[in-house]
């Protein structure tokens, strides 16, 4: 009887590193003052463009889009922390162990999931009213669930990026930032996805945020959950589906890289 829970167990212990990393990057003070405040201002910065356009609708559209974008942004920042695994020098040890690599990497940066959801929630629920966006409790719960789904699905996408960065460690910053910028551009954050030509729209469908954001917008615009339940569910299912595909791709890519590394000798011990 194969030990099906082993990947889960490994994931859980790998997440210990995620938690430890979090408090190396941030202290509670710097997280609130240095990070949360900055992302809130980021949302405001983009929402204010609506003032320039003299359109309240634009303000709200930009506000919601950019607030949800934060969740995707933080999930994408996992690319940098996931690749810290390689800097630790543990790669040969991981390869030589009888368990596969992918659960280790999946668990490695999960701290960005709850933080991304929290930050976006603060933006939406605490700042939202100032921008004319209000929530019933039912709406808030649904939005929260959507944010969690967006976080996980985008994280899976980021895992593929991490696997790529493992082969070119110095590019972690570039890849992470470019991925965020492209997401911001085409996933319906700033302008509807339909703004773009067909081929760009097609690419946008591959981004988990596109569908999750659509679901959240459906809830926000409708002012009540009931009528749009179907639309929301569809958006979430798509988000989960796309995320699952990215996760599969990440696992396959990681194992492939490990095998290739064995051939070329690129898996280093310490020093």
């Amino acid at each position, binding site marked *: 009887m194969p030990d099906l829970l082993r990947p889960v167990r490994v994931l859980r212990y790998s997440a210990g590193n995620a938690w430890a990393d979090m408090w190396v990057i941030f202290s509670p003070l710097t997280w609130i003052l240095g990070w949360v405040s*900055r992302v809130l201002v980021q949302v405001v*910065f983009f929402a204010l*463009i609506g003032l320039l356009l003299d359109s309240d609708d634009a303000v709200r559209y930009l506000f919601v889009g950019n607030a949800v974008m934060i969740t995707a942004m933080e999930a994408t920042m996992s690319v940098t922390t996931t690749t810290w695994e390689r800097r630790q020098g543990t790669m040969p040890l991981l390869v030589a162990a009888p368990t596969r690599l992918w659960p280790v990497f999946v668990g490695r940066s999960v701290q960005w999931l709850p933080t991304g959801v929290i930050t976006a929630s603060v933006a939406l629920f605490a700042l939202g009213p100032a921008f004319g966006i209000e929530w019933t409790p039912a709406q808030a719960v649904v939005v929260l669930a959507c944010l969690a789904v967006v976080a996980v699905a985008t994280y899976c996408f980021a895992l593929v990026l991490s696997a790529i960065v493992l082969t070119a460690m110095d590019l972690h910053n570039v890849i992470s930032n470019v991925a965020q*910028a492209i997401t911001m551009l085409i996933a319906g954050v700033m302008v509807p996805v339909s703004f773009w030509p067909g081929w760009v729209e097609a690419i946008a469908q591959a981004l988990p945020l596109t569908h999750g954001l659509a679901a959240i917008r459906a809830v926000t615009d409708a002012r009540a959950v009931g009528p749009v339940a179907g639309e929301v569910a569809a958006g979430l299912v798509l988000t989960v589906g796309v995320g699952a595909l990215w996760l599969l791709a990440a696992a396959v890519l990681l194992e492939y890289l490990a095998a290739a590394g064995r051939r070329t000798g690129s898996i280093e011990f310490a020093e």
Partner: protein
Amino acid sequence: MTALRTGFQFEMRVLRRSFGELIALVTAPLMTLVFLAVIREGGRDDLAPYAVLAPALIVLWGVALIVSGELIAQDRENESLEAMVATPASFAGVLTGRITAVTLVSLTGFAESWLAAFLVFNVAVPIPHPGLFILIVLITALAMAGTACVMSAVFVLARSARAFQNSLTYPFYVLGGVMVPISLLPGWLEPISRLVFLSWSSDLLRDALSPAPVPDLASRLAVILVLGVAAYVLGLALVRRTVDRLRRTGSLTYA
């Protein structure tokens, strides 16, 4: 003067190698597309000048924050700081040269955003007062360099300041009226914004991009210069204090 030139040349060489630091130059064109898309969707193609200026100014400030701000701190980290201080050349002079190099390189953000607008959206933003525009850009760059001097001193004097490095971006883009002029912002923000040279620069640059003659040019330029020079003077004082502290105590940081 040699210190300035030495610093300048050195930093140009360093920048050629450490491309990763200039990440802002990679994301700049994408930001241009973002702003252009938003105004086009909003049916306001006339705001194209705003849309190309904003990313250029964001790059200017962002690069100053990340690259210039880190200059002294990085020297300390790779342990070349003491060696630099020990040279006969003026440390402040070398630093100024290096910051100048970084600032000049970051000006390519302007070219990038104009080019991105043209290549992707087929939007060519005209510059009715080219000489004036360039002058304003240069004076803005000067003010940026002065401000970068303060950044680099602060980030080495107060180690904890680096944790807040990230949060010195968007707040200043808002206060600096980088995309949305501060005249559109709530009134209570105006006094604070006026202390940030970016707010004067962005207004002035936007005016320079409109065909009408630019009002109060001289006085506004003067304000930018004053703010920039004040920052530079403060920065130099802090740098001197940094170096003194290093010589006296053997360490740099207060916090």
